[in-house]
């Protein structure tokens, strides 16, 4: 089969997420493109976890509700998901005494682990062996993947997997050799980290918060390889203030958080605007308000990040929709921040941040932009008047420059002022930078278009584009995905022939729809989902058929 959907379910602590990514890696070796979504509650043990793995010849960035293979490490997986099995699908389950009772391919994972004297978490290796057999994956591939990606107790894990492999039987999900290049599999968070590093990030500050914690872990683990500093301070307020301090010193910095942490950073965002110190902030959206549903996805912070901060100032905002875009547009955000001395925000969501994707590194190149530096002539003025509002930078330590930055309104040298003319002048100077930003991004794709020309045009954003692009393809519709959200792009050429405009997004009020309407684009219908789960392709096709076509 060229397009297979797999669900692996069990309790927290069963190693479901590791198993899921290994499954993706097994298929990836045959040239499949993969997408993995982890659905897990905010707890460490117990509860119900599951991961959805989609593998396909085409690039896929969404899952289906209907699955071809259910792998059950606990009873709940059957109770909750058996109804989602497609016709002709297979259930693979732990048939050990007291575990799961159902019809399908039963393999006693637990008993195998016991027999081999493994740890209970190694049931996931037994499951992997059995999955490999069901999909008729060559044992050599299993060995290769285990040795590469399960470096601890590999031989024992393989012994357990082999036993299950031998006990399971082939299902009707045979893997095919697709003769396509193998691609790396990385998460959205890792892509964000890579984009930042390529754009010259020297310091990353973050306080742990789902779904952005993965960036912190990834960069900390690779600190020496990237020669960067990674710091976990006392809270998000310290995070952004430290970042601004380091940027004042001359170090390119990024911070990462979720909506709640960003709320704490907002005074720092405003400080960045007034002091004109560059900063890049990654905000991974999760289900809110407040603590909300912390490990689940929602796109409900668009207007928060667009409008956050007291005072009026320019900002740059991108909302990537997949791993390649996360990589590239994080680089763009870093570059714009430093070229134009404005805060830039990368708006992600749990589905993208923690989703695992086949990553095509040939799609984009990230190159570090160099900021405008002071030429050393005359007296240095940190806030010197200039045509586009951007004043040349100097950093402390320069023997000819005194560098004064401030949260107060100030004169060109950086000393506090309350004089009416100077106040108005500086406000104008900062606002002028909007034009500098527009110039900087002239050649960067602000909107992506997919599908055929159609009377009905679908607007979507962020990770929802994955399901949208597939659904629209199935229904013959055109999809537009704005990635640069501020300054908002001119969309007139994209929609001049549009009859009906429909938005698809995962929030309760239609935030993209509101942004479009603020920019003079009439929205005829909103397709919304706000139960903290992403859109699934098959689900979205149904809803579009019912609500739109």
């Amino acid at each position, binding site marked *: 089969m060229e397009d297979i959907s797999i669900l692996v379910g069990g309790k927290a602590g069963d190693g479901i997420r590791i198993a899921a990514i290994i499954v993706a890696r097994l298929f*990836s070796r045959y040239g499949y493109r993969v997408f993995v979504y982890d659905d897990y509650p905010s707890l460490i043990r117990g509860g119900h976890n599951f991961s959805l793995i989609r593998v396909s010849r085409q690039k896929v960035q969404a899952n289906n509700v209907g699955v071809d293979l259910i792998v059950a490490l606990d009873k709940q997986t059957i109770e909750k998901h058996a109804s989602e099995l497609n016709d002709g699908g297979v259930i693979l389950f732990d048939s050990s005494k007291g575990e799961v009772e159902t019809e399908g391919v039963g393999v006693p994972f637990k008993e195998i682990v016991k027999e081999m004297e493994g740890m209970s978490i190694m049931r996931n290796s037994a499951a992997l062996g059995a999955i490999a057999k069901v999909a008729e994956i060559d044992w050599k591939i299993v060995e290769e993947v285990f040795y590469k990606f399960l470096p601890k107790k590999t031989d024992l894990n393989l012994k357990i997997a082999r036993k299950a492999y031998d006990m399971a039987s082939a299902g009707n999900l045979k893997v095919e050799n697709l003769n396509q290049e*193998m*691609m*790396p*599999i*990385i998460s959205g968070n*890792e892509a964000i980290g*890579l984009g930042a*590093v*390529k754009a*010259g990030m*020297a*310091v990353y*500050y973050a306080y742990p918060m789902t779904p952005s914690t993965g960036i912190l872990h990834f960069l900390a683990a*690779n600190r020496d*390889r*990237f*020669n*960067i*500093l990674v*710091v976990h*301070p*006392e*809270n998000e*307020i*310290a995070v952004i*203030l*430290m*970042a*601004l*301090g*380091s*940027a*004042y*010193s*001359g*170090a*390119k*910095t990024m911070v990462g958080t979720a909506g709640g942490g960003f709320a704490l950073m907002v*005074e*720092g965002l405003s*400080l960045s605007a007034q*002091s004109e110190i560059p900063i890049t902030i990654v905000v991974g959206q999760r289900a809110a308000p407040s603590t909300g549903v912390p490990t689940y996805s929602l796109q409900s912070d668009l207007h928060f990040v667009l409008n956050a901060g007291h005072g009026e100032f320019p900002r740059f905002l991108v909302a990537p929709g997949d791993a390649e875009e996360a990589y590239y547009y994080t680089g763009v955000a870093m570059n714009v921040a430093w070229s134009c001395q404005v805060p830039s925000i990368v708006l992600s969501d749990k589905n993208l941040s923690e989703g695992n994707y086949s*990553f095509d*590194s040939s799609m984009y190149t990230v190159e570090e932009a160099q900021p405008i530096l002071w030429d050393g002539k005359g007296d240095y003025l940190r806030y010197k008047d200039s045509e586009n509002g951007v004043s040349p930078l100097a*950093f*402390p*330590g*320069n*023997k000819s420059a*005194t*560098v*004064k*930055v*401030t*949260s*107060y309104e100030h004169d060109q040298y*950086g*000393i*506090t002022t309350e004089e009416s003319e100077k106040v108005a002048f500086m406000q104008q100077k900062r606002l002028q930078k909007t034009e500098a930003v527009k110039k900087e991004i002239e050649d960067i794709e602000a909107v992506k278009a997919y599908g055929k020309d159609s009377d009905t045009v679908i607007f979507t954003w962020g990770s929802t584009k994955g399901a949208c692009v597939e659904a629209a393809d199935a229904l013959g519709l055109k999809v537009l995905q704005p990635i640069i959200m501020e300054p908002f792009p001119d969309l007139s050429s994209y929609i001049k022939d549009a009859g009906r405009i429909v938005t698809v997004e995962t929030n309760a009020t239609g935030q993209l729809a509101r942004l479009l309407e603020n920019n003079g684009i009439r929205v005829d219908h909103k397709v919304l989902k706000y139960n903290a789960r992403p859109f699934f392709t098959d689900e979205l096709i149904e809803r579009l058929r019912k609500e739109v076509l």
Partner: protein
Amino acid sequence: MNKGNKELNSYAENTWCPGCGNFAILNASKKVFADKDQKNLVMVAGIGCHAKLVDYIDLNHFYSIHGRVPATATGIKLGNPELTVIGFAGDGDAYGEGLAHLMFAAKRNINITMVIHNNGVYGLTTGQFTPTSPEGFKGKSTPWGSVERPFNPLTLMLGAGATFISRSYSNRMENLEMVIDEAMKHKGFSFVEVLQPCYTFYNTYKIYNEKVYDLEEEPPKEHVIEKMTEWNYGSKGNIPIGIFYRETRPTYDESMLREMVPARRKEEIDIEDLLKENT
């Protein structure tokens, strides 16, 4: 070429009230800064009367926001460890709005100096009680008299792990200069509290002039807490000033940076190997 006492004055107009204790801190700082490597010196300030000091001195500064001076200063030092970073903050600023940052800066032993202008009152917002105002303090937000006890910043800093702890008084110029200079020379987190009367809203000159005395020598370890608590910011006890505590411990910047200077990082990172590892 270093700026002398006169060249260190910026063109900003001084707007402190006559008699304000901040003048002494400004003058002492300028005197100490005259002999430092000025191009690498960065002053950081919060928000409040104290903070105007950085506008008045013509050196690098980051005029930050209320409560966040230790975090800002930490970031500057981590961005470029060759910089000498001195933070100025008020008692409302450092002990109220931003106490966590002060405690963590001490805990980490980041190599910066923090000078706290403690006048026991919010001056810029015209007279409210602060974390170190005495119990019963009648301010505009507590006209009935504050029911909170003040905390003792010196023992707080000791508990948090500061490696240099001192207190001075704005009306003891020589001691003030000595303490700021020693704090800046100390490698690690240096805490300097300066008792500084607010002439307009909380004039404590008379009390301090009577009660303040110079420690002269740093107390031996076993008497540090005794000296720190001789005055607990209330009405009892005499008020020792000087250096209370000093120890040597690896600094946060050295341990974290290990020779790295982020501000000068210029690197082309090849991500192909990492991607291969994930294929």
